[in-house]
């Protein structure tokens, strides 16, 4: 955690501590004022994405998805529903597949974020990308980065034991074009290669 963030925590915690003293002896229904009357201004966060550092000045409300798309210029991660219901925004944080739309960017300081732009090394495609291409595991392509990030994680998790298992563990990624059978075939193939 950067010195910046630590200082903010200490300030907040101190304010909270004062509040705590005030609380003692009070009835439960009276609660003290929040520590900051004014909402927080923009804060500095350094995102570590695909091995590169992105120092960003962000509103604390910003989701990781919006920080990637609107500020870091990484538009490969898609916004499908912005409410955690479609999986198009799937990225890896510290190696686990998660939803960037439900993640505050400000909570990502110090974490290793991988997006579709960083899944493959250089010009070589990741085996899951290659398999999606050959099995036509997509049509419009909009859910595809999320599907591929999810599929790559699924293989690492070991949830590739059968087609039925792949289907269940890919059910957090909606494909409205209906490429599911091809997606399953692609992941099955990539898992055999890996």
């Amino acid at each position: 955690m950067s010195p910046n963030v630590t200082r903010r925590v200490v300030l907040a915690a101190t304010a909270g501590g004062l509040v705590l003293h005030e609380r003692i002896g009070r009835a439960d229904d009276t609660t003290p004022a929040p520590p900051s009357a004014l909402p927080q201004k923009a804060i500095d966060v350094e995102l570590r994405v695909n091995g590169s550092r992105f120092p960003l000045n962000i509103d604390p409300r910003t989701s990781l998805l919006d920080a990637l798309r609107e500020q870091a210029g990484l538009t490969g991660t898609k916004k499908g529903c912005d409410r955690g219901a479609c999986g198009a925004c799937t990225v890896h944080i510290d190696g686990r597949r998660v939803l960037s739309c439900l993640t505050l960017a400000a909570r990502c300081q110090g974490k290793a974020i991988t997006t579709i732009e960083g899944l493959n090394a250089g010009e070589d495609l990741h085996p899951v990308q290659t398999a999606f291409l050959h099995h036509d595991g997509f049509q419009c392509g909009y859910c595809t980065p999320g599907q591929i990030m999810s599929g790559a994680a699924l293989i690492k998790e070991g949830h590739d034991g059968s087609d039925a298992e792949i289907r269940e563990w890919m059910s957090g990624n909606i494909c409205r074009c209906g490429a599911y059978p091809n997606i399953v075939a692609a992941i099955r193939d990539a898992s055999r290669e890996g």
Partner: protein
Amino acid sequence: MQAFHLAQPTMLLDALAIGNAADTKFIAGGTDLMQLLKDNVETPAQLVDLEGVGLSQIRADASGLRLEAMARMSDVAAHLDVRAQWPVIAQALEASASPQVRNMGTIGGNLLQRTRCGYFRDTGFNCNKREPGSGCPAIAGENRMLAILGGSDHCIATHASDLAVALTALDAVLELRRAGDAPRQVPITEFYRLPGTTPQIETVLRPGEMITAVIVPPSAAARNSHYLKLRDRASFEFALVSAAVALDVRDGTGRDIRVAAGGVGTRPWRLPEVEAALRGKKLNDDALREASSRAGEGARPAGQNAFKQILLRRAVLRTLQTASA
């Protein structure tokens, strides 16, 4: 989303202290709270990020299971002791949401997720839970997914957690903490409140109080437990009806019997009427059918959700059959 101050403490005591301020909410995995913030259903002045405070241990031993509040759903579901000793917990978790959500969502956050009632989640509707006194259009409205048990004239919103149903069957205890107070323990069966005339108050949590751990006692019944979730979609959907059953059967006789249901109640719903009908009885198919026919006594359907009465009984029966097989 309205502006808020984000506090990121690294110690639990700091988090509790900050969390005691007015208009402040804890954020754990964020999978539900972020939705509510984006939809302006929640508009706190401050968020306390619990990520830095640890609280993510999973401990299983002879004394039972202790899940700290920040333990991730996926980690708990994958835990070998959980799968062996409390399978209903692992099954309920793996039937929840999606793999990505389970990688983010925490045990504490899961138990505190808000209802999926569409009227609650859209500020374009009136809702007594969101704006007390504004009315409940769901009761006469689109209520297929809503509760048939525990509702009032003010609210029939379904409790959405699968995990809470499993924990209700297992008589789990929640450990709660608040700055300045000694930690306290509350059985999960006493944790959730019925909506009554105050549907905005959903639990016995006091202002500034948080769940720090879930404690599940060991039992023979827990080792033989099972979760069944019925839904329209094969995956990634909240329950229409779910059932959690834990059975200790010896010589064909039911010794310890716990049955709870989800998707039907305004809180996770324990079914003592079913348990009583089976305790000390031979668990043959007739007994299971007779007992499950009692499930959901006192149900008050609102219209579109009337089928849940029948479905509840059949879900309970099937789960009893599975667990006693």
